[in-house]
């Protein structure tokens, strides 16, 4: 669509959910109640690794106020020898994650659950459950899990023919790296580590489930996909999907962490057994112990370049921690790491390592920051060795239309070079630095995604518009869909209401994740509106008694196509809506698609840090993020996604990490000790939206939610090197590490 003629696309319209959210009326997951509601609570394993020999729930069941107890026996088992996939989730692992079966695999692993008339009684009853554990040796860190004599978490996992904690391997190959490295004048090879970090949504997981006597379940919860909630609950409880209605609450942050569920199947079984609606709300400690986070990693990256700065070969081995059950985002690491560059010879490998900590969950551009961090740091070293500006090095090797990426695709038109060029030309890049300050740059890539989406667009009897889609709104999809609808129908955006339908009121729509929601839903909404406009033209044609082909739609009204069509005054949307019943009935249309054509998103960041030499604190003092949005349908939300990703990246690089004690338990499961960036930690984060429209999308949308968290880890690391002349190969670059490094240099 031509930007110059757009009236609503690209406008900062007032957000539709604002009034509810600033007045406290928005209903989040824990905010719904029902008459007769009781409270569910989980008993969790105190051990990081233990056989469960027996569970005796008799005393708990006998406690006054207890209405139901469930264990793994009540959850559908998916035997380990046969994979059953739901999207990217393997139900063998999901059923064991929701409730431990043979073994407790991490401290905090659910063992049993109780529903009682109060939360306090439920907690008391959990203490009365007797579990006979046989405690086993455990492995927390990647290195521990890979030792030859490491405790094996799962006997059914074999790697290279032997029992192993390596649950999977993925490889992307292009050309011949041996030949490539032979041509290199400079080769840099380094090993890097990152720590697990939590998504850190402020709203803990919560749900309310009611199951009626005829076996119909209603679930209120917040998630990144209520169809996922329905499907997963169905598979884990045995209720058919048609008997489950999942109603999406407003979501208090997800960042990937709410793409799977923990509570809903358990609450469903408790509700079914007790005959009462059951509410479950996690504490922050439970969130930190048993949900998310993303993987820790250990990666070795080797890059070779010629004297003139051409990268001839690149190799990466990325070991990612999966947690207790397989499924770390190795695809994101191995796939995204080298994706920004045109490199003829690539070998990129990902290894999925299980260990005795909570199962990892998607976190914003899952795996991509872990892959990009070592690559972007090694590039910085190569640029330094060759005496080439680091952004120029990227421009020399930039992936563009026609580049074959190691992870598969040949790129169509992409906007990566534009982000690097914009950074190169930005005043920030030339601004003088103060004492103990340094500047770093880095780039990043995220796949973006399409997938299943459903929409229904209805014209109300008074001539306004209601649009229903099926993806939870996390990053502004409602506001953006309102802009697009207003644009296409030629009406004011305030006449458009956009709702997220529950699983009973709209067709299957995949998760809000992978930066897919607006890409996919605007496609089905656009096609629905095209159908609605066709109907509106037909109705006008009927009223005028002319051929529908002779009617055009513009500015929110039907017009005769030309003088030959007749001389009629325009018929507005409201006028046609008023005559809808007389001209054939209600006006509306729905479209359901498995959308394709989401094309990659790229970002380039410039970061300035200042190091406090006395305290070892690294402060980010200036940050500018450049990102190709394809088309920014609502720029405020695009900027918000960019800033949010950067802030999370800063936390990952400088502060956040899980600390385990000698007993294999998380020692910092609170916001006090797991320290996420607060307002005084951060600078203003400047944003530059680059728009290179996606040729495969009606509005040019690419998806913007993820790419922003990919570059900060390396940008900050490179900036610290620039400030101190010292490279750090392990995140977070926390004060003790900085002080230790300063001591060795001094």
């Amino acid at each position, binding site marked *: 669509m031509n930007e110059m003629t757009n009236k609503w696309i690209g406008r900062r319209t007032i957000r539709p*959910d604002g009034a509810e*959210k600033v007045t406290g009326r928005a209903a989040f997951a824990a905010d719904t109640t029902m008459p007769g509601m009781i409270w569910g609570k989980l008993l969790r394993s105190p051990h990081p690794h233990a056989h469960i020999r027996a569970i005796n729930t008799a005393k708990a069941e006998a406690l006054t106020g207890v209405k139901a107890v469930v264990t793994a026996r009540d959850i559908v088992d998916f035997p380990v020898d046969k994979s059953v996939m739901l999207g990217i989730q393997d139900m063998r692992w999901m059923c064991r994650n929701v409730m431990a079966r043979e073994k407790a695999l991490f401290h905090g692993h659910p063992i049993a659950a109780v529903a009682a008339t109060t939360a306090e009684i439920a907690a008391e009853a959990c203490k009365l459950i007797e579990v006979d554990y046989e405690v086993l040796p455990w492995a927390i860190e990647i290195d521990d899990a890979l030792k030859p004599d490491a405790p094996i978490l799962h006997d059914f996992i074999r790697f290279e023919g032997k029992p192993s904690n390596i649950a999977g391997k993925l490889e992307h190959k292009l050309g011949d790296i041996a030949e490539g490295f032979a041509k290199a004048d400079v080769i840099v090879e380094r090993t890097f580590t990152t720590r697990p970090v939590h998504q850190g949504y*402020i709203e*803990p997981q919560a749900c309310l489930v009611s199951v009626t006597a005829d076996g119909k379940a209603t679930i209120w919860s917040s998630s990144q996909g209520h169809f996922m909630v329905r499907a997963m609950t169905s598979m884990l409880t045995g209720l058919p999907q048609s008997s489950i209605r999942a109603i999406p609450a407003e979501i208090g942050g997800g960042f990937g962490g709410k793409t799977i569920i923990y509570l809903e199947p358990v609450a469903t079984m408790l509700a079914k057994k007790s005959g009462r609606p059951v509410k479950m*709300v996690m504490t922050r400690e439970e969130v930190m112990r048993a949900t998310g986070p993303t993987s820790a990693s250990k990666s070795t990256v080797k890059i070779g370049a010629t004297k003139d700065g051409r990268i001839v070969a690149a190799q990466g081995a990325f070991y990612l921690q999966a947690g207790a059950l397989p499924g770390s985002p190795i695809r994101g690491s191995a796939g995204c790491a080298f994706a920004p560059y045109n490199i003829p010879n690539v070998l990129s490998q990902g290894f999925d390592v299980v260990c005795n900590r909570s199962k990892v969950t998607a976190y914003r551009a899952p795996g991509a920051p872990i892959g990009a961090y070592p690559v972007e740091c090694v590039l910085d070293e190569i640029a330094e060795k060759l005496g080439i500006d680091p952004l120029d090095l990227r421009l020399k090797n930039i992936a563009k239309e026609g580049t074959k990426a190691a992870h598969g695709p040949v790129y169509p038109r992409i906007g990566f070079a534009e982000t690097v060029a914009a950074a190169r030309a930005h005043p920030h890049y030339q601004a003088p630095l103060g004492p103990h300050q340094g500047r770093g740059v880095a780039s990043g890539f995220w796949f973006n995604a399409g997938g299943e989406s459903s929409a229904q667009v209805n014209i109300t009897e008074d001539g306004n518009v209601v649009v229903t889609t099926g993806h939870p709104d996390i990053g502004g999809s409602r506001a953006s869909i309102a802009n697009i609808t207003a644009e296409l129908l030629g009406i004011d955006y305030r006449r458009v209401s956009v709702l997220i339908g529950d699983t009973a009121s709209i067709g299957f729509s995949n998760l809000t994740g992978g930066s897919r929601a607006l890409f996919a839903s605007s496609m089905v909404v656009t096609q629905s509106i095209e159908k609605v406009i066709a109907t509106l033209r037909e109705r006008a044609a009927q009223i005028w008694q002319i051929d529908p082909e002779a009617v055009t739609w513009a500015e929110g009204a039907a017009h005769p196509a030309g003088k030959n069509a007749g001389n009629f005054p325009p018929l507005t949307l409201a006028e046609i809506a008023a005559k809808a019943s007389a001209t054939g009935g209600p006006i509306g249309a729905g479209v359901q698609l498995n959308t394709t054509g989401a094309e990659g998103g790229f970002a380039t960041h410039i970061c300035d840090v200042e190091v406090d030499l006395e305290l070892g604190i690294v402060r980010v003092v200036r940050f500018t993020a450049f990102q190709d949005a394809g088309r920014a349908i609502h720029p405020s939300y695009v900027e918000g996604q960019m*800033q949010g990703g950067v802030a999370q990246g800063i936390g990952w690089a400088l502060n956040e990490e899980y600390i385990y004690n000698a007993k294999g338990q998380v020692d910092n499961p609170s916001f006090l000790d797991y320290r996420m960036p607060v307002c005084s930690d951060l600078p*203003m984060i400047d944003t530059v939206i680059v728009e290179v429209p996606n040729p495969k999308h009606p509005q040019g949308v690419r998806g913007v939610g993820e790419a922003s968290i990919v570059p900060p880890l390396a940008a900050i690391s490179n900036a610290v090197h620039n400030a101190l002349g010292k490279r750090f190969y392990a995140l977070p670059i926390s004060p003790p590490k900085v002080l230790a490094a300063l001591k060795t240099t001094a």
Partner: protein
Amino acid sequence: MSEKRRISLTVNGKAVEREVETRTHLADFLRHEIGLTGTHVGCEHGVCGACTVLVDGAAVRSCLMLAVQADGAAVTTVEGLARPDGTLHPLQTAFWEHHGLQCGFCTPGMLTSLAAYLEAHPNADEPDIRRAISGNICRCTGYQNIVAAALDAARVMREGR
């Protein structure tokens, strides 16, 4: 199992009298007894700030205060920031218009914290505001638009004086 006590207080200007368990914290009291679910519980250990309410005008973590401690106090929650006629508090308008929220879960605590702070510090500048809300965690925004919204609300509040 647990002791109960009768308390009376005002919540958002309305007199409230209830019998509560002494262990019930103020956040649960407001959410479960009074039905004011705008007060959000994010960490139940006083760090995230989402549960902040005003107790006799002071910003307080309602997850760290017992309901019985609020006996006799005047409590204002996010639901009570707007005027009785529905006119939004300048902070509410500014957050809405300046995109001072994404998911909105931390928003009630941000609004109540800032309402108390700006009342006492009408001339607050950007560094002041950054410090003032550094006990409130937002994971979505990077705080940029929260600060922008607070600065704009401070201006409106000054002009309205």
